[in-house]
């Protein structure tokens, strides 16, 4: 094995260890409860898959949430019709979203740049509206697709699973997939997904994708037909998104149309850019940061802030609380927007660039200070939030 292969192994095992020990090291952040860790892992899968398209080929898809939704609906239908075991559902989710991605990709990839982005956005919005109102018998519209006692569950009833008075939970060979076991299932899928993404990035196919990003015209002149490569990258990342959507339904047997909304597509773009486009670990970090803000910052309320700042004198405390309360609770978008602005302006390569700079600081010993955030960015951030 050569040196870069060894460093890949180090990266992989480091990543796996970090993911699997999440329940331990997330404790000080108040984020070590199963539902949030599941979200970290699931959106990690989503972002890794998105990065295969956006990071490697540079094609910015604004419609990946459509595949997320398709994955969720597929798994819930598999629960309803076949079995509460998650394995068939997950397999179907990947296949169906792959087919879906092939169809959308085949059309969208006839254009590049902004036209490609708009096409994918249009397709996603179309899927969202279909799921929201037109296909109500399949998707149950706004209410969301849910399990009921009267679902057929053909395989389960053939296997003689006793019908009880309560809706069964999804499981994998007797282990319930909610709570902590659910997190470990998502974590294993994330690690496998990361491994595959690592292999794709280092493979000749990955080289092709990177070549497309650096200069597609030159590729075409040298005799390569780039479209099949692009289509495959699109399908693979669509399958990752479908897998993530399926996992959402594994940990929580429900599928709603809002998963396909353009905001969800935008979110994965944010995750990838925030973490670092084209890096392997970056998208996962971005997913963790955004989900952390969404779940933890949005839960702070004024009485909790009063407790935090209780040490301050009363008048000052009220001022501090009323200022900070703008940034937590329902104002969490504002904080996220600010942070996004700061990262994009000062660390165009995302959080991973920050990590590299800090690494250089210690590793090579070439001091390089980071610019502090100025007031101007604060205002821009507010406009964005």
């Amino acid at each position, binding site marked *: *094995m*050569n040196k*870069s*292969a060894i460093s*890949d192994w180090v990266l*992989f095992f480091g990543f*796996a*260890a970090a993911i*699997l020990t999440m*329940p331990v090291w997330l404790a000080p952040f*108040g984020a070590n*409860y*199963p*539902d*949030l860790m599941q*979200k970290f892992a699931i959106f990690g899968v989503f972002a890794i898959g998105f990065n295969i398209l956006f990071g490697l080929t540079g094609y910015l898809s604004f419609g990946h949430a459509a595949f997320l939704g398709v994955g969720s609906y597929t798994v819930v239908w598999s629960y309803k019709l076949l079995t509460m075991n998650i394995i068939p559902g997950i397999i179907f989710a990947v296949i169906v979203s792959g087919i879906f991605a092939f169809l959308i990709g085949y059309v969208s990839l006839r254009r590049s740049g902004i036209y490609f982005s708009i096409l994918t956005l249009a397709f996603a919005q179309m899927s969202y509206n279909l799921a*929201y*109102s037109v296909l109500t018998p399949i998707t149950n*519209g*706004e*209410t*969301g697709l*849910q399990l009921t*006692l*009267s679902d057929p569950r053909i395989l389960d009833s053939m296997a003689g699973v006793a019908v009880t*008075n*309560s*809706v069964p*939970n999804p499981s994998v060979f007797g*282990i319930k997939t*909610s*709570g*902590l*076991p659910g997190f*470990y299932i998502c*974590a*294993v899928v994330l*690690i*496998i997904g990361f*491994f595959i993404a690592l*292999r794709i*990035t*280092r*493979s*000749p196919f*990955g*080289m092709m994708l990177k070549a497309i990003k650096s200069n597609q015209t030159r590729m075409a002149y040298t005799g390569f037909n780039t479209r099949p490569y692009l289509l495959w990258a699109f399908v693979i990342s669509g399958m990752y998104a479908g897998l993530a959507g399926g996992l*959402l339904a594994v940990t*929580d047997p*429900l599928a*709603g149309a*809002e*998963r396909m909304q353009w905001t969800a597509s935008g979110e994965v773009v944010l995750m990838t850019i925030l973490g670092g486009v084209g890096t392997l670990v970056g998208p996962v970090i971005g997913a963790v940061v955004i989900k952390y803000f*969404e*779940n933890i910052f*949005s*839960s702070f*309320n004024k009485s909790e802030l009063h407790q935090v700042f209780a040490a301050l004198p009363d008048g000052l405390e009220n001022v501090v609380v009323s200022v900070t309360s703008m940034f937590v*609770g*329902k104002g969490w978008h504002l904080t996220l927007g600010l942070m996004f602005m700061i990262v994009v302006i000062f660390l165009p390569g995302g959080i991973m660039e920050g990590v590299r700079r800090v690494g250089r600081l210690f590793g090579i010993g070439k001091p390089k200070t980071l610019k502090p955030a100025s007031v101007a960015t604060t205002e821009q951030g507010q406009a964005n939030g």
Partner: protein
Amino acid sequence: MSKKKAPLSTWTRRDVLKASAASTAIAGAPMFFSRHAYGADFLNNPGDGKTVTLGFNVPQSGAYADEGADELRAYQLAVEHLNGEGDGGMMNTMQPSALKGNGILGKKVEYVTGDTQTKSDAARASAKRMIEKDGVVMVTGGSSSGVAIAVQNLCQETGIIFMAGLTHSNDTTGKDKKANGFRHFFNGYMSGAALGPVLEKAYGKDRRTYHLTADYTWGWTQEQSIIASTENIGWTTEQKVMTPVGAGDFSQYIAPILNSDADTLVLNHYGKDMINSLTQSIQFGLRDKQKNGKDFQIIVPLYSRLMAQGAGENVKGIYGSTNWHWSLQDEGSKAFVKSFGAKYGNPPSQAAHTCYVQTLLYADAAERAGTFEPCQIVSALEGHKFDGTGNGPTEYRAEDHQCFKDVLVVKGKDNPSSQFDLLEVVEVTPRAQVEYAPDHEMFAGGDLGSCNNGA
């Protein structure tokens, strides 16, 4: 950009096998240790702790954010009263009551809040945070039936009590009813049953209705209920159009109404959607029109004072129904309005009222049961009869966990005396008129299932 040349194929099959075996082992190990993490006899048992935590899950953004904000105020007031602070509000008027004003079962009440964003996913994520991280014994909230049903399902699955806030869909206690879920608020069927006779008296027996309906469980069931009720008095239904929640602009839906044969518009909208659709209907001049020789009329089956405030002048003379209104003169309502007004400076909305009452009812049930165990609380609430909470004698029916009580038919006031005095109560429809059998066709198909303690 890395200039390093990527290694092409350095992994042998054996490497891959080794790696996958290793990662499976690492991944499997913690699962082995953590499967039976909960040792208590029910989920989130506060045990010997000095406090108990409740989860308030309301929309703080989206089309129903105004209602959510008012619900949160009511919850905070209820917590104060339960802990013996403030003037006690309805704690003094509720009959029977086991509440002592020293928290619940001697434990101080604390609370956590969350934003449902009026989305099922976000609401469930937020409820899960409360259950898994904050250890709540009860989740309450709502303001969208889709969200309420999703969270009720979650509470049933995990084994936590869900006290529904503002949710008006028939399905919440109909086909989606759950043993761990309880609803104090009224529903679409009751609105229809209460509105029917009043509309007949006001607008006659011969009208053609045009429905604009929010496209989700609440809109569907309310539309169905109103149609059943209006067709019962001889009206016909011209057209039914679904509109997305949070649409903002309804002009594209309103223009076709002018060209139809309908002479009555039914707006099955709520929150900001209702404010927008009603305002735009008025701007399009619908109410100045004559159709079929009659004045064009608009009906808003589910009304609230917050919406009336948002729509301003436009609500004048428009009929609707409501669960409760702050102008009621019974002791419970007066006590609640007084303490809410003293704390926040404005009267409570119907959403605030139902959330406040639900919190007290939960606390009372826990006191009577002597435990926070969900199944015990379910039996304490089932068939529970109480009074003094603003709606007259009320009963939690055991068959579907729906409260049965009087319903108010209201109308937008022509000459409001203050910015809050926007609705007048036209009729208090007695409970008997809005009651239905548990297996009524609009509520059939569901099953409470058995209660879940979650451990």
